[in-house]
């Protein structure tokens, strides 16, 4: 590998997770949480909330019951890392959940697994059964259960996920209250991405320093990337954060990369001329891991059209800006392409997308404008002609 791209092996490394838990169970809640805060770990699902703070908020709540949820509703186009983590190191995910349970005072954990990954169920359930036995031997009261999704992208949004777990339509709730105050069944809940939980376990293992030394000030540590599209090296890679997109493309591109979509359909499209100054991380363009590369044979109109069709189908329909906005953006670019509307209509659509960004209730409608504006701004001519 190019020396500017630093490969890391924390997530998939085989460790004695029981020994890590055994050590952690002897520590106080605050000691564990302080390590996670100190490490600078931020949520790996895409939103990037500081994990240690989330755990601290949940810990500080008084309640008769608290919950831990592992968000395995990996639906963002271009990401497939959580499936790989759950396949290769499921016991580390369970370990991370138990660690979160220990530090927040939760005794019940749930994995919300997307329906598209139902084939993982037999193996995962067997791992959970074994894990329960091991926890029993350690006298630690914590149980984990899997809840399945049924094909709804929006359920990856944490409050929609909880609605779904409660047997309702997966429509996001208003925030606040945040899940750490009122989550699943109205109880304090810390909900974390699959990868985040594994990192937390590894930080408990090695202390915060090693993790903190990697990456940049805003983006500590490493991250699992899902690389797809026009690349000879499609697959899963754990890399240190803070690299430039240029370095990334030099490593993974096919020599003709014209654009990279960072962060999936809800992320941003970066054109070749901006590769150099674009940093992959929270100070630049953050990603839940999805990196889709496109070479010069690809039509950016088709790519944008595909993303907008996706959002139009997956919008939960609850709030007007998102429901109507996604439909109109899709209809709008089709009308411009066919010449029914003049090119200047794209400006109107960009105003609409700004309304969506401001007024939508959840991340879906707020981020659908990301691919729209970044593709229109970089490849306007491809949308019109």
């Amino acid at each position: 590998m190019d020396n500017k791209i630093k490969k890391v092996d924390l997530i998939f490394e085989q460790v004695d997770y029981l020994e890590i838990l055994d050590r952690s169970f002897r520590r106080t809640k605050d000691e564990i949480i302080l390590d996670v805060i100190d490490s600078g770990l931020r949520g790996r699902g895409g939103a990037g909330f500081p994990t240690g703070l989330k755990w601290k908020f949940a810990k500080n709540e008084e309640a008769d019951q608290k919950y831990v949820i592992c968000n395995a509703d990996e639906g963002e186009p271009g990401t497939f890392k959580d499936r790989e983590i759950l396949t290769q190191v499921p016991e580390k995910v369970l370990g991370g959940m138990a660690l979160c349970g220990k530090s927040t005072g939760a005794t019940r954990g749930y994995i919300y697994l997307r329906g598209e990954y139902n084939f993982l169920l037999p193996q995962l359930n067997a791992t959970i059964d074994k894990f329960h036995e091991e926890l029993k031997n350690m006298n630690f009261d914590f149980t984990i259960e899997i809840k399945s999704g049924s094909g709804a992208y929006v359920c990856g949004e944490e409050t929609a996920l909880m609605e779904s777990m409660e047997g309702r339509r997966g429509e996001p709730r208003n925030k606040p209250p945040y899940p750490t105050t009122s989550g699943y069944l109205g109880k304090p809940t810390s909900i974390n991405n699959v990868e985040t939980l594994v990192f937390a376990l590894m930080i408990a293992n090695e202390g915060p320093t090693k993790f903190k030394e990697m990456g940049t000030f805003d983006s500590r540590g490493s991250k699992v990337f899902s690389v797809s599209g026009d690349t000879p090296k499609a697959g899963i890679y754990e890399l240190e954060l803070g690299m430039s997109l240029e370095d990334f493309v030099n490593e993974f591109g096919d020599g003709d990369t014209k654009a990279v979509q960072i962060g999936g359909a809800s992320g941003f499209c970066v054109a070749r001329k901006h590769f150099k100054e674009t940093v992959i991380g929270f100070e630049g363009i953050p990603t839940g891991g999805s990196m889709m590369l496109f070479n010069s044979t690809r039509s950016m109109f088709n790519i944008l059209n595909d993303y907008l069709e996706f959002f139009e189908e997956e919008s939960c329909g609850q709030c007007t800006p998102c429901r109507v906005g996604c439909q109109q953006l899709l209809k709008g670019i089709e009308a411009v392409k066919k010449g029914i509307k003049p090119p200047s209509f794209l400006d109107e659509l960009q105003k609409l997308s700004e309304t969506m960004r401001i007024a939508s209730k959840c991340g879906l409608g707020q981020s659908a404008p990301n691919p729209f504006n970044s593709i229109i701004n970089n490849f306007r001519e491809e949308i019109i002609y």
Partner: protein
Amino acid sequence: MTNIEELVKQQAEVHGKTRESLMPILQAVIRSERFLSEDAMVAIARELDISTADVFGTASFYTFMDTTPKGKNIIRICKTITCHMKGKDAVIGALEDLLKIKLGENTSDGRFSLLQANCLGWCHKGPVMLINDEVYPEVTPESAVEVIQGYLKQK
């Protein structure tokens, strides 16, 4: 008691009769019947003591909970961009020819439904096909046809 009422009753015993049991019960009916009939939804509503409209309202939200009849085997081809780039249209074309149906239709013998799905999470190994819960990454028109022929041979 009809078969479906019995299935619902049995599932309610396994999962409980609270609202949180609705998803697992709906999913169990889908696993067995591939779709939710009106009878099934009425039976679930009665068992959980909620309105049928509430059951339908919840079910109709989820892509994998069909409320119209589906084939015994549901074939879903991922249609999201990277699978699109890797040739999912050719795979769909080959299956349409083999099964003599169009996308979104059921075969007349009720054995197959052919559908598209949003990202299935195999972008590095597209195009990908899901049959019920089984996944088939990196399919070609030829290999997809072979897989379906395997299903056709089963009784």
